[in-house]
């Protein structure tokens, strides 16, 4: 029997706003436990939630990038449950009116292009971080209240590869829009997978299994591929799939049972009476979209228009900060192609070597652009530029200053160069005779001599041109 996987994803994205979803407590990562909280996060009596404007702007931007309909009325509900991860006894979420609905995104897979439908995008607050020991649990409320967006896809993915591409695209969108740092390993992008199998051609859904604890895109693909084969074997042998929650075990590369699902929990959702519905004006929504940072897809198109090839463009947009660095470098007016080569080559190799982020790189993009301009103007050779670049990293000085200090300026003064050329030609009359007799190589000897006399500082292109002119004159 041939089976088909039906996969839907729920992605939680932690926003990197300055303050929390409903309180002005700071949003940080890695602070001491329970130091980034305020009375609203702790549900102290008398406190009232206030909706974070930037979180709403972020949700609008992501909804727009996912081609969704945007609701102009923001309403929040309470999801009631009794658990230690939220002191209020409920989580504030958008159950009935998600800010974004009915969207899609397009992914590129080995099977070609595919459109994945997205059911909803809603805002909510994160819960506290619980650390479980063998006989006790520790609570850190720093995370409680951090703004989240939850993106729920339609069950339209059919393989681990499609799911991985989908998450990759969502990750790219939220990071390029500056909504989140999208770090799966730190939990700022979390993904739950719902997967069932059915006979190919059938329209009926099979029993759904949920997979949690997926901390990398790679693991999402592996967990789904494993789950497809696990469920296929059970069904092939006439067994039936239990409705359960599983987690991915990195060591064995298998999904393992966490708990069997019983009846669905009734969260008794109702509109939060402490938050009056908020009407978003058309202008507010349009401005949020208009002022959105540029998405990777748009950058890719722009880079190609600048003359970069697909490969180089893809390397630049693989990392938002690298592409922003490249964009800043372009402001110097240098060649896009040369700048791309430097960023992908020299800059990237320094970052790899030192394990540093581009944000901490000591040479600013504009300074790199200025160095490239010197190469373009033939004031320094490529080789010399690399020496200057190394010094720029070491000293933080500008290229112009270092070129002078290192005595690297190319001789580009026509008069100065011509007098050296005349001297060399006068001293080597045989080379002129050889060149005129058709031995083109003779010119190389003259160029070599000029370079020797100028200690390699002669502008090669200019020297070549002047030598030919001088020989032809004789």
């Amino acid at each position, binding site marked *: 029997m041939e089976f088909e996987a039906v996969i839907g994803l729920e992605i939680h994205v932690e926003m990197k706003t300055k303050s929390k979803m409903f309180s002005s*407590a700071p949003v940080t990562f890695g602070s001491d436990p*329970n130091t980034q909280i305020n009375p609203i996060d702790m549900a102290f009596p008398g406190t009232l939630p206030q909706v974070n404007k930037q979180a709403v702007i972020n949700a609008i931007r992501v909804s727009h990038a996912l081609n969704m309909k945007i609701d102009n009325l923001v309403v929040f509900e309470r999801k009631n449950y009794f658990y230690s991860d939220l002191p209020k006894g409920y989580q504030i979420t958008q159950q009935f009116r998600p800010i974004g609905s009915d969207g899609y995104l397009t992914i590129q897979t080995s099977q070609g292009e595919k459109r994945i439908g997205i059911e909803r995008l809603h805002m909510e607050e994160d819960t506290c971080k619980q650390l479980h020991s063998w006989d*006790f649990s520790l609570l850190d409320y720093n995370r409680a209240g951090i703004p989240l967006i939850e993106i729920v896809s339609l069950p339209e993915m059919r393989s681990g590869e499609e799911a991985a591409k989908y998450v990759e695209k969502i990750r790219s969108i939220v990071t390029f829009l500056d909504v989140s740092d999208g770090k799966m390993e730190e939990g700022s992008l979390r993904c739950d997978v719902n997967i069932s199998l059915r006979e190919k051609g059938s329209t009926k859904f099979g029993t759904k299994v949920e997979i949690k604890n997926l901390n990398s895109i790679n693991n999402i693909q592996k967990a789904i591929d494993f789950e497809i084969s696990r469920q296929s074997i059970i069904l092939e042998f006439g067994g039936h799939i239990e409705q359960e929650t599983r987690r991915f075990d990195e060591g064995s590369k298998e999904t393992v049972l966490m708990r069997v699902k019983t009846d669905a929990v009734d969260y008794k959702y109702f509109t939060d009476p402490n938050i009056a519905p908020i009407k978003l004006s058309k202008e507010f929504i349009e401005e949020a979209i208009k002022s959105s940072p540029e998405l990777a897809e748009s950058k890719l198109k722009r880079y190609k228009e600048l003359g970069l090839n697909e490969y180089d463009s893809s390397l630049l947009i693989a990392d938002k900060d690298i592409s922003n660095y490249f964009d800043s470098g372009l402001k110097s007016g240098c060649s896009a192609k040369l700048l791309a080569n430097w960023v992908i080559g020299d800059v990237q190799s320094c970052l790899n070597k030192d394990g540093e982020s581009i944000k901490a790189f000591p040479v600013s993009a504009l300074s790199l652009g200025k160095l490239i301009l010197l190469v373009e103007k033939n004031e320094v050779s490529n080789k010399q530029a690399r020496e200057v670049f190394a010094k720029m990293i070491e000293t933080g000085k500008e290229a112009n200053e270092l070129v002078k200090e290192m005595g690297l300026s190319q001789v580009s003064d026509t008069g100065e160069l011509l007098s050296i050329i005349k001297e060399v030609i006068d001293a080597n009359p045989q080379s002129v005779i050889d060149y005129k007799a058709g031995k083109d190589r003779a010119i190389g000897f003259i160029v070599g001599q000029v370079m020797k006399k100028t200690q390699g500082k002669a502008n090669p292109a200019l020297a070549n041109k002047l030598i030919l002119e001088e020989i032809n004159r004789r």
Partner: protein
Amino acid sequence: MKNINKETLKMAANKLMFDMSEEQYNHLLNEFDVIVSQMNLIGKIEGVDNATPMTFPFDVTSTKLREDVATTPLDRDVALRNAKDVVDGQIRLPRVVK
């Protein structure tokens, strides 16, 4: 309307993780009798099924959004003053997962 009996109340109390004395259940049951009869009365109003449910008694729609500015958080000692058991700045509970 769903009939509310003692079993319903006990089930709800169990879901909310508390329990009461028999006397308290009987008291609550009497209160529900009043509530249910009032609801039944409202249900008899003509066209009530076509009315849109309301959360707020009148239009309270606002345009107010809080600017994304972080303020000084609570001092940890103050925030955790009511916690019975604190270890390394974290609240300690009996293990909450199986």
